[in-house]
């Protein structure tokens, strides 16, 4: 069965510093990997996805993610964090079963 692990419940970063939110996955076959963001009292919003091709994927709001097949990871990154990036971030994977979400990582960007 496919699964996603987000090892950090909370990530704190100072505004202007780079941020990383970690995600590892387990799936048979080729994975489709996604990052979503959830702001308070809102639904999830799609940030970016990896399907195939270039391992570095660029998405919305300046976010990017790097697919690493050997480490089965798909970490979310941003070169310079903004206070407005503070939210709950979900990694998700599709294989032969429907989309499975990680438990989420709360990102706090401190001014």
């Amino acid at each position: 069965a496919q699964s996603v692990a987000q090892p950090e419940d909370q990530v704190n970063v100072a505004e202007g510093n780079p941020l990383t939110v970690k995600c590892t996955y387990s799936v048979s076959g080729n994975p489709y990997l996604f990052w979503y963001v959830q702001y308070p009292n809102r639904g999830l919003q799609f940030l970016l996805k990896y399907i195939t091709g270039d391992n570095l994927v660029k998405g919305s709001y300046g976010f990017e993610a790097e697919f690493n097949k050997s480490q089965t990871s798909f970490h979310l990154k941003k070169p310079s964090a903004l206070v407005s990036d503070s939210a709950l971030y979900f990694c998700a994977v599709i294989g032969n079963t429907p989309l499975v979400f990680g438990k989420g990582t709360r990102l706090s960007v401190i001014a």
Partner: protein
Amino acid sequence: DTAVSQTPKYLVTQMGNDKSIKCEQNLGHDTMYWYKQDSKKFLKIMFSYNNKELIINETVPNRFSPKSPDKAHLNLHINSLELGDSAVYFCASSQDLPTGGRGNQPQHFGDGTRLSIL
């Protein structure tokens, strides 16, 4: 225009009651979903419909019954509500099927229905 809209936004009711949540999408998508997000923010798929046909039915009590009158609407009816049903329920849609080679399209989520059972 809101792409995926759910009503009501908040639902407060007593144990044992029956309630419905409605969802509509104006994106022209073929597939719609219901998810449950618990108090720890864990998100789990409940059901999915593709062109009005049920394609995913996860381990959910049969008190929960989805209905899709057309591909733009997916409603969720819950009978005999229990305390453990308290959660936020999200509707979502995607262009195509949610698995395999056609599962690479992102899902679009509504803003959720917060269900509180007294």
